[in-house]
């Protein structure tokens, strides 16, 4: 994605290498959101110049790397103005109204690509775009390693230094992002960027086969040379360690909610604009104590700031504090529906008075005693006496 200032009309380009992956479509929509906030026209461009159907045949990487030439110093609007606009109103324009329930196996995602002959109909059917799983794309990712030199040549051909990196890939793509690390380190000319440059980054979170998470390392390497970064990430898609968690782990902080995004068959996700200050260092961590394996909450002896990674031995998932948490207070490690008991010490300590999300501060604003004048015990959850 970039803003093209060569002509009289500025526009945001979503530039990609093929478009097999449903997440590319999703990221395209994120780019569309950004364009909306920049007040610019939006263009979706495949820069491979290869036959689209060749992607499905494995001829090139289905993973999409967008390295356009754009410096935020030349951006038509400063980031803070964009943020102000985000704060000003909802993004009805960017919210897909409906979803087309597309389930795998889906032989050829290209028909749902922007620019394809089928795209207008797909857009008409879904409101904006359609997403789903694509087994074919997963298989194609494995060809990535062989295409490295080709990818690098594409990067080399990118007209101007890039300030936007969009990384997308299908689920279960263990090799795809590893391929990006040398690209990010060596071919994305982020080193050319001034310290105050802003690098828009969009990273999709995937658990690798080996369990490692090199996307975070990638982000950190970029951050080390890029100064302030702005990015768009999904809040919860489609598992707890989603893109936003990844960004927060790399030192990003939430700035604004861009709007909701429908993933047919999966969930409704919320797109979030995040910012990582140049001075941010790694993922700040807050120590936490899990008292009992059944507990819904952990205790932060020293408290923590919004976005801090919660480090609690015994808690398997990656959790970030949704807001500042005073010393000794609790953070939810599980979703708790309003009315359900909240467990600590493996026992009910009261009932949620509103929905409690993972990472939420749990205290008197969302938890109340069920005893001695409280709402009273129910059978809402095990542990009621």
């Amino acid at each position, binding site marked *: 994605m970039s803003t093209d200032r060569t002509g009289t009309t500025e526009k945001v380009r979503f530039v990609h290498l093929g478009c097999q992956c449903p997440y590319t479509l999703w990221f395209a929509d994120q780019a569309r959101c950004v364009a909306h906030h920049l007040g610019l026209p939006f263009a979706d461009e495949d820069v491979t110049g290869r036959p689209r159907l060749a992607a499905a045949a494995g001829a090139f990487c289905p993973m999409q790397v967008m390295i356009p030439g754009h410096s935020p110093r030349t951006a038509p609007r400063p980031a803070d103005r964009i943020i102000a606009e985000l704060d000003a109103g909802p993004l009805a324009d960017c919210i897909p109204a409906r979803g087309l329930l597309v389930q795998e196996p889906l032989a050829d995602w290209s028909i749902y690509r922007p620019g394809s002959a089928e795209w207008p109909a797909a857009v008409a059917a879904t409101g904006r775009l359609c997403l789903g799983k694509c087994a074919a794309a997963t298989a194609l990712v494995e060809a990535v390693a062989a295409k490295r030199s080709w990818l690098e040549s594409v990067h080399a051909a990118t007209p101007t230094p890039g300030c936007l990196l969009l990384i997308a890939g299908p689920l279960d793509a263990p090799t795809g992002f590893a391929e990006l690390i040398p690209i990010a380190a060596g071919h994305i000319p982020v080193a050319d960027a001034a310290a105050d440059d802003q690098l828009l980054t969009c990273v999709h979170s995937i658990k690798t086969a080996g369990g490692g998470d090199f996307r975070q390392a990638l982000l950190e390497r970029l951050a080390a040379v890029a100064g302030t970064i702005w990015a768009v990430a999904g809040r919860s898609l489609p598992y707890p360690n989603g893109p936003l968690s990844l960004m927060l782990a790399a030192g990003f902080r939430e700035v604004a909610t861009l709007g909701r995004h429908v993933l047919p068959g999966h969930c409704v996700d919320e797109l979030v604009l995040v910012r990582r200050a140049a001075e941010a260092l790694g993922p700040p961590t807050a120590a936490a104590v899990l008292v009992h394996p059944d507990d819904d909450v952990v*205790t932060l002896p020293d408290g923590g700031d919004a976005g801090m990674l919660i480090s609690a031995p015994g808690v398997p998932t990656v959790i970030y504090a949704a807001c500042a948490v005073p010393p*000794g207070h609790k953070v939810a490690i599980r979703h708790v529906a309003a009315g359900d008991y909240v467990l*600590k010490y493996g026992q009910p*300590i009261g009932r949620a008075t509103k929905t409690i999300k993972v990472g939420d501060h*749990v*205290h008197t604003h969302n938890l109340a*005693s069920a005893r001695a004048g409280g709402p009273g015990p129910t059978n809402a959850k095990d542990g009621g006496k």
Partner: protein
Amino acid sequence: MRDLSFEGYVRDDGAVGVRNHLLVLPTCVCSAQCAMDIAARTASAGAISFYHQHGCAQLEFDRIQTLRTLAGTGANPNVAAVLVVGLGCENVTASEIVAAIAAQSSKPVAAITIQEEGGTERAIERGVELVQRLAAVSGISGDTRQSIGLDHVVLALECGGSDALSGLTANPVAGWVADRVVAAGGTVILSETTELIGAEHLLAARAPDPAVASALLDTVARVEATIKATGVDLRGSQPAPGNIRGGLTTIEEKSLGCIHKGGTSPLREVLAYGARPSRKGLTFMDTPGHDVESMTGMIAGGAHAVLFTTGRGTPTGAPVAPVIKIATNDRLWSLMRPNLDFSAGGIAAGRQTVADAGGMLLDLLLDVLSGHLTRSEQLGNREFGIYRIGPTV
């Protein structure tokens, strides 16, 4: 195997004390100042006193509870002798207290009333004379400590100014020590009925005797019903505002942390406020969550010392029993160290295990039982307050 003995005083009747106080005990609010004046003039003889506002204009159940508590405090084995100071017209009389102390111990007890002595100056003069005589009779200055086993000890447990770490650090450490005292044949008193709400089922399940389990559940149910009957939401006062700032959200959460003080031993008995345990092992006393009233009840029940855990920090002590103040976190330990005796904060910081800290606390307890003064003793904190049941009339 750790040597679980300490140096204590053996009384004539065989009772074991860990302090040698000569208590000047006011029967009621009206004689309290006089009693304090007598003790101030005889401090060198070992006399102490304290202020309280009970003893008169009380309905019968409160009168009985006040009598039991005042007499129990006088009978506490840490007290070598007692001078009861009455006014003369109060409804908890000096002679009743003397009789009640005598029923529980053979220590020397004397009494005066201000009205019979002819005013406070004469009462003070007479009281000073009696204290000096009691000091001589009880021989407290010549008393020497002897090696005593923990089986003679009654240990009280208290938490005040709890925070979210209370249940993770200091209370489990106190519980570790409580378990060792029980294993050594001693007695432990857990208290604060309000702070069992939400955790009572766990403690009741540890009572081998079903009658004890149901007594415990009934006690909690009665307190909860009493609170509900007032029409006032408990949440206005429990957890206290400081508890809430410290991260405790509900009474259940506070309770589940509180009961860790009791360790893991079987529950043997449920006691009325101020009553003496008749069983060894872990007992529970029906007291309010109010720190001073709770400790007053347990010490009236014969507690030799108190393990007091705190997350917010409090200077509270007690008149006749040493109170060992245990911080739940390092921040408090550095902030209020002059009021604290021990920190369990190393557990949250990962420097210590509960057993590590428990071993150190047990050593401190044995030292305190042997005469080492706690911070609240050094600072002269002697808070005293009796749990009121009904209105003042």
